[in-house]
């Protein structure tokens, strides 16, 4: 890796400077990335009538060999952020810097070498594999596209990969339909590994799997990270899974980062009311703690990203909201007493040790 990472420029937009104390080098820096999807009116003379503000100024820093978990509600922009980083959709504004090089909106040809370094694993192990291709072709396709191995060399490389991810190399000629969901996700993992990438973006990689297979895939991802020094951006809505795999966690709400920090800071000492609500809503797989759980009930629906609320986007649903929250966007910053890498975007952060009012399921029932 060459040179120091470029400094994050615009602090007011919530940009996050690289951590000077970090041991490992910064692999990926995302700087105030914005992604709007235009909405056009119908008909011949289609006009631009608005935007879906999927990602609206997200910054993050990811170091070599680390895992950053991204959590948030459906439609909060997690997957769009992933696609922006992987270069699958053009970015409206902002920068993606990979190994110190600006890879924002590169041409296809210029992006080609970076595609080898940044790979994705998708949620749906059924839909993300071509059903008419044999497994050997699916896993070997990256070698063909990037012309790194051919013929027998390619076959051997593919079978090594299959072995590595726990598939039987003799199944080289089978079709995806002949594999179970967990095995298909292994195929997706093998395909992502083929070109020895540095960064793997995992977009809900275990959401479609049952818990026992989920544990197998999570262990596999952990082993591969150790063996190959991989860096993961791990998107999931299961908070326990994210806590298990991540070093750092970013909580997103409606296209923006609500809270960011080392996982134990975010899980045990969170300040953002949305983070608190999200954590309190996650059911524990234990009946006694489920019954005792004090859940913070949020009112209202998630607003539309076409017309998001002014100021703090969470303010219409926030139990602590005051006037300023509807007027000013809270900067993502370290709050008093927090380590410098625990950042919260909130005007009225919940102090450590204070609980927001919640209710158990039994209390909710009695209240009716």
């Amino acid at each position, binding site marked *: 890796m060459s040179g120091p990472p470029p400094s994050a420029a615009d602090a007011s937009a919530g940009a996050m400077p690289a951590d000077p104390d970090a041991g490992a080098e910064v692999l990926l820096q995302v700087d105030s990335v914005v992604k709007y999807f235009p909405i056009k009116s119908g008909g011949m003379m289609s006009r631009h009538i608005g935007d879906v503000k999927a990602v609206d100024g997200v910054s993050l820093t990811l170091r070599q060999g680390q895992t950053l978990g991204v959590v948030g509600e459906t439609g909060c922009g997690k997957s769009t952020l992933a696609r922006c980083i992987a270069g699958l959709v053009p970015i409206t504004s902002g920068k993606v810097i990979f190994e110190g090089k600006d890879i924002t909106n590169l041409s296809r040809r210029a992006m080609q070498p970076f595609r080898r370094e940044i790979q994705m694993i998708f949620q749906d192990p059924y839909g993300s594999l071509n059903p008419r291709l044999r497994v050997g072709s699916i896993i070997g396709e990256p070698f063909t596209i990037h012309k790194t191995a051919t013929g027998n060399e390619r076959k051997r490389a593919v079978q090594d990969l299959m072995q590595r991810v726990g598939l039987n190399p003799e199944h080289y000629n089978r079709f995806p339909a002949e594999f179970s969901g967990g095995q298909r996700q292994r195929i997706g993992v093998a395909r992502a590994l083929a070109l020895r990438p540095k960064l793997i973006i995992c977009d809900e990689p275990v959401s479609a799997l049952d818990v026992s297979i989920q*544990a197998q895939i999570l262990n596999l991802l952990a082993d591969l990270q150790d063996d190959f020094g991989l860096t993961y951006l791990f998107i999931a809505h299961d908070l326990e899974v994210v806590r298990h795999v991540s070093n750092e966690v970013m909580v997103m709400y409606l296209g923006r980062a609500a809270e960011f920090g080392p996982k134990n800071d975010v899980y045990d000492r969170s300040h953002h009311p949305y983070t608190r609500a999200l954590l309190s809503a996650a059911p524990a797989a234990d009946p006694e703690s489920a019954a005792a759980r004090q859940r913070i009930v949020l009112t209202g629906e998630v607003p539309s990203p076409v017309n998001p609320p002014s100021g703090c986007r969470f303010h219409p649903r926030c139990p602590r909201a005051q006037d300023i929250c509807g007027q000013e966007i809270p900067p993502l910053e370290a709050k008093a007493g927090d380590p410098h890498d625990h950042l919260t975007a909130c005007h009225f952060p919940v102090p450590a040790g204070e609980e927001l009012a919640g209710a158990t399921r039994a209390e909710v029932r009695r209240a009716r």
Partner: protein
Amino acid sequence: MIAMALSLSPKMIIADEPTTALDATVQAQILDLLIRLQEESDTALIMITHDLGVIADIADDVLVMYAGRAAETASKHDAFYQPHHPYTMGLLESIPHSSAAADRLKPITGQPPSLITLPSGCAFHPRCAYVMDRCLTDEPKLEPVGAAGQHSSACWLPANSAGLDERAAGLRRNAVAEGRTHVAAKVAEDIAQSPEGEGSVVV
């Protein structure tokens, strides 16, 4: 979707993975809604899910299925705290827990079997750490375990070996020591050797 399901005020609702793709806050809202409807109109609810958190939250009784058959049926309390079937125990152990210090999860080995060619005997035997000789040949029936008669399991382990404590584990070890000769021992060895790869081959 829920409104459609309710339009004829049914006596029973079958909810098939209703919250699987949803995140925690929305999932909680959907579960609240289902429970409220259930209480208001006295509707029965069959909740199909692979999320054990949802079951812990809202179920009264639990049916654990494996390869097309009932593996265990129990009250919610017994399913989580007094499981008898090794598959139920394996599911509970697979979940990541924030409290667990260990950084490796404990998955069930192998893959779910093909429903076209089910394994002989107990369909779970190629993945079961407690596999015994009879598991390879005889299919266990759903039999009562525990005193209340509310709890049944389709497993050859002794009925009194339900639970996650040391006493129950000891009873299971004894049963395995008695019930396992070289045939089952070979299966157990295969399971131990391919801890997270392909246990049974899906054809």
